[in-house]
């Protein structure tokens, strides 16, 4: 029960919500993933690359959402 879409009434809002959620998740996933790979490749201690990547991805995703809907 991940989707609580009520039929017919809230289509534009629900779609925008799905897009925003997808963007947020992929932002964190992509750049967090790149950061984790950097950690592994360069041997950066304490998951520093992963953390920086996730924050960067989150910031970028927020920027995209604001650009698209704001």
């Amino acid at each position, binding site marked *: 029960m*991940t989707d609580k*879409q009520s039929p017919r009434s809230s289509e534009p809002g629900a*779609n925008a919500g799905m897009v925003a959620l*997808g*963007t947020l998740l*992929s932002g964190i996933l*992509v*750049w967090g993933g790149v950061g984790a790979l950097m950690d592994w490749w360069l041997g950066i201690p304490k998951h520093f690359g992963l953390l920086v990547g996730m924050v960067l991805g989150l910031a*970028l995703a927020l*920027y995209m959402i604001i650009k698209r809907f704001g």
Partner: protein
Amino acid sequence: MSVQPAPLAADFPPGTGDFDFTSLIPSLRGSDLGLAFTKMTFMVWLGVALLIIFFLVAYRSPKLVPTKRQWLAESVYGFVRDGVAKEVIGREGIRFAPYLTTVFLFILVTNSFAIIPFFQISPNAHIAYPIILALLSYVLFIVAGVRKQGFVQYFKVNLFMPGIPWPLYFLITPIEFISTFLMRPVTLAVRLFANMFAGHLMLLVFTLGGVAMLGSANFFIKGLSVASFAMAIIMTFFEFMVVVLQAYVFTMLTASYVEGALAEQH
């Protein structure tokens, strides 16, 4: 150790091995072909056959004043065409209505096996079926977009957001790519699979739990099994709601992806 409850067909603590369905045809067991004739595939064939027969019978001699069956068939198609295709995609959506209706009814029927006695599990609780359904929708929305806008334009619209400074494309295009071309099919498949699988486990927990409690030596625990069975019945009604809702959500999301692919910009 409690007494082994008698009425269970499977081994009592059910395990993941219960999801390795064996062939219904004994002589094919163990061979690759055997996997084509399991309980899962039987349910899919049955569902498809039911749908085909229903629509053939309903439209055998269409009347201007529809019969009851024809009315049912027409109203289901009308619901998806007007309520999903037209509403989400717009006027262009009508040509996607047959696909959307087929997907909606296929998922509805196959999901329904989750609560039909003796079947008790939906084929969609096996990730293979949702994956194929999601791939169909995935190919559909990409092909629809490419045919509408051309290959280059389609990917330009989807990967390069307008109105941002160009160095940011290095950072943002990977996100766009993942969210449009990877997250969409994955979430489509996983949502359907996880809902049906979780529903199956939920029903199992309360039903098997009830049986196990009934087999207990403790009188108090034995009595409590009634609550477990009552919960199983309530959960079956809840599962019915999930069955319908997930079929609707899958159709709705497919339509909204097609709409996004047809749009000149989002």
